[in-house]
């Protein structure tokens, strides 16, 4: 019984130490590796906060996909031989920055320690949403995402779309419509290829499972989609698949399918159930799963396209 608090404190110290390492590390690569480890440790903290859904998202997106994004960016910078980044601030500025950061952290810690009791909570409303418009969902977080705060979730899908568009538009003008550069230039090692060949189908299967159980248990469209995205990226890193041309119609349809279906069902709710994003009684769960299936597709396609970066005009499909 008394081991758990010690484990908590150990975990907390470890998370802060690894975070400090990512800041202090000499080179970018070491820092990124530290960040991936940090993401996985942070997922454990989320588990301790009774937030397994966030833990899954943090492990997949915060640790894995962000790690691949940064490692790929570092390799591309190396290839550009653009390593000069200017001098850092001097010792005096560092001390001032450190003191100010400590002040901010201290103030935040004070606020956290003096949060009001009893804590304000929207849980009753969420419970009502899970019982009412989100009927049949055992996972309150999915109920909140798709029913109670459906608008936020839909706009977040549009943010993903905007980010992809923003990244594509950063590319050179004459490269428009072509494929992004491959994630790795070098020929991959046999061990990497084998790992991708075995892991990718199994990971895809697990991704579908996480999406499917998300209605009633930890998991859901984001987590499942992020896992599928990670598997696609593993296959791209092994050079078994290449990123599609950004002009591809299938790619564009997949990208917009999530928000489009979400919006269409929302508008249909206006007519059939009386208000925007209201689900007709009795159809809530199948409709929600229908929306989520397309959200999975959008997330699974959007994340790798963001990592792959702007079209590069060189790689022929």
């Amino acid at each position, binding site marked *: 019984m008394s081991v758990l*608090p010690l484990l*908590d404190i150990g975990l*907390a110290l470890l*998370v*802060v130490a690894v*975070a400090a390492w*990512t*800041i202090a590390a000499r080179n970018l690569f070491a820092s990124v590796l530290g960040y991936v480890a*940090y993401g996985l440790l942070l997922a454990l903290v989320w588990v301790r*906060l009774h*937030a397994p859904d966030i833990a899954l*998202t*943090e492990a997949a*997106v*915060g640790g894995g996909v*962000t790690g691949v*994004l*940064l490692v790929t*960016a*570092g390799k*591309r*910078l190396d290839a*550009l031989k*653009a*390593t*000069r980044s*200017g001098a*850092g601030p001097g010792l005096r500025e*560092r001390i001032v*920055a*450190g003191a*100010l950061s400590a002040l901010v*952290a*201290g103030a935040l*810690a004070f606020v*956290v*320690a003096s*949060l009001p009791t009893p804590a*304000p*909570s*929207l*849980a*009753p409303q*969420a*419970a009502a949403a899970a019982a009412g418009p989100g009927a049949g969902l055992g996972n309150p*977080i999915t*109920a*909140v*995402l798709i029913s109670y*705060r459906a608008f936020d979730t839909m706009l*977040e899908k549009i943010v*993903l779309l*905007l*980010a992809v568009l923003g990244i594509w538009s*950063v590319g*050179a003008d004459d490269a428009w419509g072509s494929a992004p550069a491959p994630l790795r230039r070098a020929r991959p090692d046999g061990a990497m290829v084998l790992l991708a060949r075995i892991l990718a189908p199994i990971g895809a299967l697990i991704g579908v499972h996480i999406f499917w159980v998300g209605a009633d248990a930890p998991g859901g469209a984001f987590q499942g989609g992020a896992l599928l995205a990670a598997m696609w990226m593993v296959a791209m890193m092994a050079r078994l698949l290449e990123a599609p041309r950004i002009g591809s119609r299938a790619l564009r349809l997949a990208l917009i399918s999530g928000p489009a279906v979400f919006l269409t069902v929302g508008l249909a709710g206006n007519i059939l159930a009386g208000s925007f994003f209201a689900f007709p009684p009795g159809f809530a769960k199948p409709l929600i799963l229908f929306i989520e299936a397309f959200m999975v597709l959008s997330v699974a396609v959007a994340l790798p396209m*963001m*990592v792959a*970066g*702007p079209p590069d005009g060189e790689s022929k499909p």
Partner: protein
Amino acid sequence: MNPSLLAGLVGAALVGLGLYGLIAHPHPLRKLLAFNLVGSGVFLVFGVVARRGAAAGYAFDPVPQAMVITGIVVAFAASALAVALILRLAVAGGDVSLDPQASGRRDDGEAE
């Protein structure tokens, strides 16, 4: 010390560490990493709020938790956009300096 207070303090420390890295590192990718630390610290504080708001039969308040999930994905999208801009800066300027004096070739970056 209960786990949620501890996690809140960790969140505060992460915000401080990230803030320092954001100011102190000259390399934009390192700045981006530090900024992600700040972000996850804020999420953690939000998670503490969610944990404290346990009510209606749940061990947590699902609303902030759902928003953290949305937040993580949006933060990733922002990071990916930042990476694309940094790489473009490197292609255009030949280096990744954010210091306008340090880079001589910045102005003719458009002429490719």
